[in-house]
């Protein structure tokens, strides 16, 4: 039979009380089978992860050249909780190191011929990852791409780029990001 040991602290003067709630139901609290500190709702263990930077920005009407990887300008902020998104450069440079879920959406009007549309996530000025669709002429098309990107919390940044098969003005572009795990 395992045992429960209560260990007072010789230096402290306070009294810890285990209090029962007002309930008529029998309950069992099972302690984890490992060494550590049991957390409470006020424990500040993951404040960065739970309250880390997140943003959403969008744009439209940007002329982007066919056959060219165009930096997409998303100058309209919807939210930017940590002021890490720069609308003048359309860059997200978070101030907390960690892993970020980045999503980019690109919508274009119909192309005059069948071609393709590529939607990129750029990290620090270079292609990080992309997704593309082959598109049929005469049809509006869109590409959504999402990936997880590690950003160092100081100098790393992400941007959206898009490569259409022919020169067009964007119908809508969106970039969003959220910290999903602090480093």
């Amino acid at each position: 039979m395992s045992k429960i040991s209560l260990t007072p602290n010789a230096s402290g003067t306070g009294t810890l009380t285990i209090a029962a709630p007002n309930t008529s139901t029998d309950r069992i609290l099972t302690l984890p089978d490992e060494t550590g500190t049991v957390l409470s709702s006020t424990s500040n263990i993951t404040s960065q992860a739970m309250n880390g930077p997140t943003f959403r920005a969008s744009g439209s009407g940007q002329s982007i050249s066919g056959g060219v990887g165009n930096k997409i300008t998303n100058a309209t902020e919807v939210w930017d909780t940590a002021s890490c998104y720069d609308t003048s450069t359309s860059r997200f440079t978070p101030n907390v190191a960690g892993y970020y879920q980045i999503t980019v959406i690109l919508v274009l009007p119909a192309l005059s011929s069948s071609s393709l549309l590529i939607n990129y996530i750029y990290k620090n000025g270079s292609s990080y990852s992309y997704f593309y669709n082959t598109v049929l002429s005469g049809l509006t098309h869109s590409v959504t791409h999402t990936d997880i990107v590690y950003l160092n919390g100081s100098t790393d940044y992400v941007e959206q780029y898009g490569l259409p098969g022919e020169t067009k003005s964007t119908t809508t572009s969106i970039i969003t990001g959220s910290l999903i795990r602090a480093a």
Partner: protein
Amino acid sequence: MSLYEKIIAIYPELNINDFTPGGSIVLQNDSDGNGDYIAKWEHPTLARPTEEQLA
């Protein structure tokens, strides 16, 4: 005429696939006012166009 269209006019044998990821040519525009430019030209047989050709 865009840079892509100029290059296609010089080298009609190229197509959009040559300019996509995995292709040998990367054209880029950083929306910084400097326009389209050749970020990478690694085509195995075709020479990078000169400024005069692209003018």
